[in-house]
């Protein structure tokens, strides 16, 4: 093990002389990032929602990034955080699903297995101080059982009836906690999500007004085309902001 001057440790390789490249393999900060992802269970399955923006620091550089993808037959994966790491994860999962299909034996990887696999991947990368800088939302339905879970870049993982990542944790979770019920219809679930997305649009500076909703049920997955939400900026408090704004918010 070699320890560099800034205290970072490099992993030992078979040939100890050639580890000049080691340090640059660590992720230090994310570059192109996606904002929140929301997930909600409803009667027939699960809905995921996210905006389609990719920020480059404070610039909203990319406006058409699909951050929710279909995995295999039974699952959807949504990600916030570093987009290139998300693409890397999609490659890993692609390989996983491919090998699973090659067995050709009637068994298939369900959402629970994919969730756990991702947890292992994320946790192991974190232990190497080279994390995949994402918060992932994994949703799926298999044999009637709905599964909705999150894995973070540290390897923290949990499941719930409704989840969100990033700013959603602060802004959307209170709304979801108040309004979620067992047996929501598709339309009701969409309305709740749109409410959360609107709040995020108003208050999260890295979100844009272009969203995608994806649905997964026992029958399969659908990713709906992007659309935008109506916003209202004519609040009296917004006019003459320095006069009307009270407090630092």
């Amino acid at each position, binding site marked *: 093990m070699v320890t560099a001057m800034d205290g970072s440790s490099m992993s030992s390789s078979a040939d100890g002389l050639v580890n000049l490249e080691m340090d640059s393999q660590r992720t230090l900060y994310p570059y192109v990032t996606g904002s929140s992802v929301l997930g909600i269970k409803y009667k027939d399955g699960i809905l995921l929602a996210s905006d389609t923006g990719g920020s480059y620091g404070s610039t909203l550089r990319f406006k058409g990034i699909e951050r929710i993808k279909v995995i295999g037959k039974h699952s959807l994966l949504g990600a916030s955080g570093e987009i290139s790491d998300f693409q890397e994860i999609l490659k890993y999962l692609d390989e996983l699903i491919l090998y699973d299909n090659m*067995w050709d034996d009637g*068994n298939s990887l369900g959402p*629970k*297995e994919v*969730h756990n*696999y991702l947890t292992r991947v994320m946790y192991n990368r974190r232990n190497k101080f080279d994390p995949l800088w994402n918060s992932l939302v994994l949703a799926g339905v298999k044999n009637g059982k709905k599964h909705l879970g999150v894995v973070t870049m540290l390897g923290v993982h949990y499941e719930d009836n409704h989840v969100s990542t990033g700013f959603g944790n602060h802004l959307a979770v209170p709304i979801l906690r108040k309004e979620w019920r067992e047996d929501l219809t598709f339309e009701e679930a969409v309305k709740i999500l749109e409410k959360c997305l609107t709040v995020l649009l108003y208050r999260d500076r890295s979100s844009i007004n272009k969203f995608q909703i994806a649905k997964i049920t026992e029958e399969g997955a659908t990713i709906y085309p992007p659309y935008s939400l109506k916003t209202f900026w004519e609040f009296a408090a917004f006019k003459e902001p320095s006069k009307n704004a009270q407090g630092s918010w």
Partner: protein
Amino acid sequence: MEAVKQGSAAIGLRSTSHVVLATVNKTSSELSSHQKKVFKIDDHIGVAIAGLTADGRVLSRYMRNECINHSFVYENPLPVGRLVVRLADKAQVCTQRSWKRPYGVGLLVSGMDELGAHLYYNCPSGNYFEYQAFAIGSRSQAAKTYLERRFESYDKYSGEELIKDALFAIKETLQGEVLTSKVCTVAIVGVGEPFHIVDQKKIQEMIDAMEVTGEAVAEDEQGDDYSTRGATSMES
């Protein structure tokens, strides 16, 4: 393959909800205990072996490892079909390398997974087959004949009924020797029932019940079997 035929009998039967394994415990002498022939691989999979027990132990360890690794990564039990393929591939390697010898043990793999109940037979050649019911080991032909007559109705059997039939089949292989719970080991796995070896007392009760109701094995079989009754201490 010969080693499998000389080991003492192992039998498996399957319904849509349960799988039962039963083995005959042969002791090399009156003084010794019998060798272990039934191994729990995971909560949902168990095996019965016939042949070189040492090889069986090693393969069981391999299977347990595979199951545990899968459970760790995917938090779901390993599908039985995938386990037997890995086992078969491992056995096949030994048939194609000149410096290796094949594993001298046949395995009856019983398990439950999402697709239902399974019973597989893995042989030393690397082949594997799925069965409704099967018997391996010495004098297994008698059991097989018995099973062939009855297997068509097994799908709907409950766990208890399967165990009863397994005991009958074991009785066939004993060819006249008295069937007691000391002589056999029975294990079961099923829906909501993790793999476990059935308690000796319960087996003895079922054997006694078999005799009392006079469910004599009226079927007359001429078991054309292997007359080899002797076995080296390696095999059981």
